[in-house]
């Protein structure tokens, strides 16, 4: 009995693990796609307000790109979660710019930030979701699978999660562990809360454990009422003060175990059961059956074990151990066969997967319909035949050795592992298959059971996906290279143009000055005025050319980063600007600024431009107030420069950082319109960004960040060196 329960439980556990692994791999595959990385970068550059995120074109792009994933049956939606666990992208607008629901399971988010794909436990949804009848309801159970999005430097920049409906696969897997009329397999969390569906919802409603519209999932604690509630007895102890059931108590202590003596379950009904705490999944699983029924229906447990292998949605085949019996006509080991207690049920026969059993000498003793479809042999053709019949020649020797080793030592290397091999059909053709082997011992004989599936189509699909991805990456790489070349060319052009412009300028300036000096006295005032205009023009164009040269130089040169105190840069710049403040009342309010990993020469240019702009645009003010400081925007450190100058209308904010874009008239404020473009280029070079807020005639504030990746490194724990659990 205990063995049968443990076997069923183990099977369930393996099934859940496989399922979790499969989804984690899938989530990671999507998170790794270059497209997702690129779109995520754009998202990270978008201000983290709901409005901005909704309006950003990248929002629609990422929804479209991920649509095939979340429009299927498995996933109900997706999230891209940025620093501070804020949702940057999601299926629903209402989710954007707010913390992700998973902050209720912070350890899961932390695991993802530290670089692992992870599956959450079911929890109550924050948005209405369809219930099993398709009706939208509040607080439906929901769960998430997620994976980190890495950048090229190996930093996790965001997280991609998909919403999974726990009432689908998760529940389905556990429901397959229902035995007879009262057996059930369920999962619970660390607080002993039921996190899968109960088969006793109706009973639980009747005895008042859940409300008339409620489901047991997420609503029932695995506590022992001390009396049998189903039999109409009433507990005097409030639910929350009741002790955990024997099973839950042991499982939450991290133990696994079985109890075939009988103990009270969460309904107070006497059950026998097996349980395990699975630290990889972060949940407990148990299989329980009413004691009364248990000893009547031992065989039904084993039937269920076979049924478990029929999952159509699992890509993995579940290993299980098989009792083989009832086929005395087939084989020699009649005695041991009789000793085993189970018959292959009709479920086994109807499974789509091939289920084959063999005796210790490797002769086939059971053959289901799935095996027939897979290999092309009919049952009567293979029974009693060696298993090697089903293998290509090259596997046969190893198979023989394995059998011998098992016979002599009882040891085998492949039991319980998922193998990818090749099979040989009746017509001699080969095909790839996935195989899971189990063994079962009776008193004097070992039997094997194999669950296998033809994975030709899957391999082809994988190959197609791999090729598509390869092509996609190639195309992206090519485009990137083209773009980089174009940008380089443009910058070289800018450089040589501005370089060559300097010579004629020098000549215009030179000769007009010589003109004034040599024959100035003979010219009238109008002529002198025009000459002055010419000189002003050349001077202005000279500045423009110099600024452009500088801009293109920054584009071409690498940032030479070193840890720099931003306050000292501000101090230097202020000294250099002293000439401009002469005769003015300027109040500087410089707060503490961080040390940053940046190119000090380039960062100095940033401050020089921002501070001299601030001085320039406060010129009409009797008292200029210029503030430099640090603040936090959406959980990110941001440096700002604020002034009380003439400001500008936010209508034109888009133009602010464009080359040659000016928002003021030249006679009011001089300038070339290159300064802020240069600032932006410098900050982009550092992986940061710059933006501005202003009000006409009230002043302006410029904000910038430096290299988000750097900040994150400091905040996030170093990924764990090793992970526990199965490979």
């Amino acid at each position: 009995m205990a063995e049968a329960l443990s076997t069923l439980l183990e099977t369930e556990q393996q099934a859940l693990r496989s399922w979790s692994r499969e989804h984690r791999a899938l989530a990671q595959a999507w998170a790794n796609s270059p497209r997702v990385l690129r779109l995520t970068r754009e998202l990270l550059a978008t201000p983290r307000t709901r409005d901005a995120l909704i309006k950003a074109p990248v929002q629609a792009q990422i929804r479209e790109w991920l649509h095939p994933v979340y429009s299927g049956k498995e996933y109900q939606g997706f999230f891209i979660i940025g620093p501070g666990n804020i949702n940057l992208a999601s299926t629903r607008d209402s989710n954007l710019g707010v913390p992700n629901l998973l902050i209720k399971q912070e350890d899961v988010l932390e695991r993802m930030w530290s670089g692992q794909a992870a599956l959450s436990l079911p929890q109550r949804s924050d948005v209405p979701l369809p219930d099993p009848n398709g009706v939208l309801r509040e607080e439906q159970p929901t769960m998430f699978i997620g994976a980190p999005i890495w950048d090229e430097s190996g930093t996790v920049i965001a997280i991609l999660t998909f919403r999974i409906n726990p009432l689908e696969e998760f529940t389905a897997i556990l429901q397959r562990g229902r035995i007879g009329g009262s057996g059930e397999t369920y999962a619970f969390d660390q607080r002993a809360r039921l996190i899968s569906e109960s088969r006793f919802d109706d009973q639980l409603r009747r005895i008042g454990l859940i409300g008339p519209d409620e489901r047991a999932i997420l609503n029932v604690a695995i506590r022992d009422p001390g009396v049998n509630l189903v039999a109409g007895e009433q507990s005097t102890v409030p639910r929350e003060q009741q002790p955990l059931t024997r099973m839950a108590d042991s499982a939450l202590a991290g133990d696994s175990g079985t109890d075939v003596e009988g103990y009270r379950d969460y309904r107070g009904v006497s059950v026998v059961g097996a349980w395990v705490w699975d630290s990889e999944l972060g949940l407990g699983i148990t299989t329980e059956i009413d004691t009364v029924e248990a000893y009547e229906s031992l065989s039904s447990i084993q039937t269920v074990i076979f049924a478990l292998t029929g999952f159509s949605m699992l890509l993995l085949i579940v290993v299980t151990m098989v009792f083989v019996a009832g086929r005395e006509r087939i084989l020699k080991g009649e005695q041991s066969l009789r000793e085993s207690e189970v018959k292959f049920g009709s479920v086994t026969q109807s499974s789509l997967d091939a289920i084959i059993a063999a005796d210790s000498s490797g002769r086939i003793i059971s053959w289901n319909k799935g095996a027939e479809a897979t290999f092309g042999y009919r049952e009567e053709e293979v029974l009693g035949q060696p298993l090697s019949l089903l293998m290509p020649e090259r596997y046969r020797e190893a198979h023989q050795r394995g059998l011998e080793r098992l016979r002599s030592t009882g040891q085998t290397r492949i039991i319980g592992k998922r193998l990818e091999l090749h099979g040989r059909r009746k017509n001699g053709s080969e095909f790839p298959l996935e195989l899971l082997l189990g063994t079962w011992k009776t008193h004097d004989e070992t039997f094997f059971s194999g669950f296998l599936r033809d994975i030709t189509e899957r391999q082809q699909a994988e190959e197609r996906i791999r090729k598509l991805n390869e092509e996609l990456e190639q195309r992206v790489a090519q485009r990137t290279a083209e773009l980089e070349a174009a940008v380089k060319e443009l910058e070289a052009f800018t450089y040589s143009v501005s370089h060559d412009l300097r010579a004629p300028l020098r000549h215009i300036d030179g000769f007009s000055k010589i003109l004034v000096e040599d024959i100035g006295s003979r010219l009238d005032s109008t002529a002198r005025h025009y000459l002055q205009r010419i000189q002003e023009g050349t001077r202005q164009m000279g500045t423009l050319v110099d600024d452009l040269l500088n801009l293109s130089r920054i584009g071409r040169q690498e940032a030479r980063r070193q840890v720099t105190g931003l306050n000292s840069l501000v101090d230097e710049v202020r000294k250099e600007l002293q000439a401009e403040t002469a005769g003015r009342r300027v109040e500087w309010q410089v707060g503490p600024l961080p040390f940053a990993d940046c190119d000090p020469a380039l960062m100095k240019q940033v401050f020089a431009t921002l501070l001299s702009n601030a001085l320039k645009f406060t010129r009409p003010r009797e008292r200029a107030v210029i503030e430099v400081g640090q603040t936090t925007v959406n959980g990110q450190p941001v440096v700002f420069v604020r002034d009380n100058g003439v400001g500008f209308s936010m209508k034109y904010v888009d133009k602010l950082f464009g080359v040659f874009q000016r928002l003021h008239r030249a006679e009011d404020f001089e300038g070339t319109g290159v300064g802020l473009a240069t600032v932006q280029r410098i900050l982009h070079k550092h992986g940061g960004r710059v933006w501005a807020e202003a009000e006409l005639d009230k002043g302006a504030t410029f904000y910038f960040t430096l290299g988000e990746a750097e900040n994150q490194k400091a905040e996030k724990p170093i990924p764990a060196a090793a992970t526990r659990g199965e490979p």
Partner: protein
Amino acid sequence: MTQEEVHILLVEDNPADVELTLHTFRNGNLRNRIHVARDGEEALDFLFCRGPYSVRTFEHAPKLILLDLKLPKVDGMEVLRQVKGDPRTKAIPVVILTSSKEEKDMVNSYQLGVNSYIQKPVDFNQFRETVKQLGLYWLVVNEPPPTNAFSAR
């Protein structure tokens, strides 16, 4: 002009620049001591006393070379390389006077042994001041190399 009189070799292809540079020297007696080479090849012929300048001798080298980088035929960097690479000419002070302030050019020039690197200012007053100071420094303040610094050893 006899060869003894050349104090400055101005290597400059742009006639406007030549004129402006010469203008800055108009008030001194230097103007007549400036020889202009209009491309790199002419500059090399002049300095290595060959072709039309075969009558010149290395002992009568100019006291200063003002060298532009962008030149027809042979560019300024090559002129610099040859001048600084030959024991008969390497002692002549060379000042690069160019529009370029590209780091690559500056690094190369200094590695080839240039004595000074100056970007031509757009503002004519600054330009004039710069060139004047250059002439003053190299021709008046600075002690020129002794004659036997120009011999092949």
